[in-house]
């Protein structure tokens, strides 16, 4: 594959992807490209297919037709373990058994790297220590998840996906149910992961302004189709917001980050 193809296909891409629940088609002929080492946000109204698309890209659902490419190669050719070594996923409202500690959870991130009866290796330990450190959960390692705050718990789950040491992270509404401080903390964590650790992050976000401020690439979805995709300043417009969300608004510049800021009328 030439460098040019790599660029146009991105890190992760869907080609002519259709997704259906039974007879009900949710996504039709979707072409979506996730640029490498960037933070991509999927936004769109409820029922626009954001979460379904994320699940499909994560290999948790098979598309009715079309292909998901990771580095230009169909994820169907990868085993679940090999895919898990390269792509970490955090869905909405994950549930852990009562009493499971942060350390126990993060250890699970090493699952794809261990053969059936392999012992815990130094590399496994290093990956967990690093994941705890990056997410600032080292001091919480021995605390049960159910006694953590929502923000801490979310960081612990992200630590688990980081322990997988994949290049790609897929997050489904990671900031929902978090208070403002924890939302900002999480967005800063994603920024660090992308900028300093070369991760490719895709997150479904509800808050347009949050997406515009932190993401480098935004995909606006409506009824399972892409309405617009590109840099925040190119895709966030009053017309796009009106057509997708049915809300009239003005777009101003965020005085702090100089990114588009949507003010509903």
């Amino acid at each position: 594959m030439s460098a040019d193809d790599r660029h146009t296909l991105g890190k992760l891409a869907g080609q002519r992807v259709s997704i259906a629940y039974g007879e009900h088609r949710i996504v039709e002929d979707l072409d979506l490209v996730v640029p490498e080492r960037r933070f991509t946000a999927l936004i769109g109204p409820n029922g626009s297919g954001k979460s379904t698309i994320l699940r499909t890209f994560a290999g948790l659902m098979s598309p009715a037709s079309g292909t998901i490419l990771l580095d230009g190669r169909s994820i169907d050719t990868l085993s679940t373990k090999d895919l898990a070594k390269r792509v970490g996923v955090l869905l909405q409202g994950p549930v852990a058994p009562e009493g499971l500690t942060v350390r126990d959870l993060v250890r699970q991130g090493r699952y794809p790297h261990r053969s059936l009866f392999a012992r815990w290796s130094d590399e496994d330990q290093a990956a967990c220590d690093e994941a705890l450190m990056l997410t600032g959960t080292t001091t919480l390692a021995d605390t049960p998840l159910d006694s953590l705050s929502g923000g801490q718990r979310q960081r612990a789950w992200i630590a688990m996906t980081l322990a997988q040491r994949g290049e790609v992270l897929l997050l489904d509404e990671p900031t929902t149910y978090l208070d403002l401080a924890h939302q900002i903390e999480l967005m800063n964590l994603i920024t660090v992961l992308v900028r300093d650790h070369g991760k490719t992050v895709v997150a479904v976000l509800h808050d347009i302004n949050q997406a515009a401020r932190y993401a480098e690439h935004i995909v606006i979805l409506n009824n399972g189709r892409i309405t617009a995709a590109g840099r925040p300043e190119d895709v966030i417009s009053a017309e796009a917001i009106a057509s997708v969300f049915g809300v009239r608004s003005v777009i101003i510049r965020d005085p702090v980050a100089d990114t588009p800021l949507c003010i509903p009328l």
Partner: protein
Amino acid sequence: MSDGSRFFALLLVCCLLVTVSMWAVTLGTVHIPLRSVWQAIVGFDGSREHLLVMTIRLPRVLAALLAGSALAVSGAIMQAVTNNPLASPGLLGINAGASFAVVSVMTLFGAGTGDVYMWFAFAGAGGAALLVYTLGSFGLAGQSTIGLVLAGAIVATFLTALTSSVLIFDQSTLDAVRLWTAGSVSGRTMAQAAAVAPYILVGLAAALLLGRHLVTLSLGADAARSLGQNPMVWRAISVAIIILLAGSAVSLAGPIGFVGLVVPHIARLTIGVDYRWVLPFSAIGGALLVVAADTAGRMIFASQSFPVGVTIALVGAPFFLWLARNRAGGAT
């Protein structure tokens, strides 16, 4: 809790188990000192005392140990697989299937020896569990474990109703089966314990190797898959081990309840939720509970045939209430 203190807790329960088992062998209509028990094992001389040890006391204790550890471990696996703290192997219809098979055989062919029931009980347990698993896995609920729990409740209720209707019309079977359905290790022979032991030991060994995979599985099907685990495969392996263990236990000792529910809970409260520790702790703890309850029952009720299932239910029911009150809605 550190691995060191977990190991210490496990060691402590092991010591307790050895002590209680030795006490159980000495206790009965006549007291037999430990020295004689030892001599009976290493140098059997055919005396009345030695006969008592080898044909009555020791088989009974062995049956209690085997059934207890098998039930507790299969309960722990069941709770992990369904991510439901109130799950027990009975949820797979194992007890109902075994009871139905034993009662049917007794009614059709008359009361036979214990050896015959064993194999029918195992077949009934396995058959019911496979039916539940098939209905639950490929039914409406798809990959969720709710389907499994629902199918289990339906099959168990149906089989229990069938068993009851047979017993209503057949008084002689009711009398013969009464002790069996309470769950008892009284009157088990060495041959019976030895016949089931290999299955239980293989099941326990497989369960101990399963530990790490169970933690992953208990995160739910989506999370497990995203970590590279095939939840369908591991759930099937788990259910196979549950059938092997709980099926063997029920064929040896009848449907003893509560062990599979209570022991994994005590294990988790003591050493945390890591299944690499919960499983061995449950194995030892389950054996300890059944031997201790059987021996205590023999002592308190001054009857050698008092079924251990009743003693455990007397202790287990209040615990279950306490559990349901404190944990209801917690992690279900």
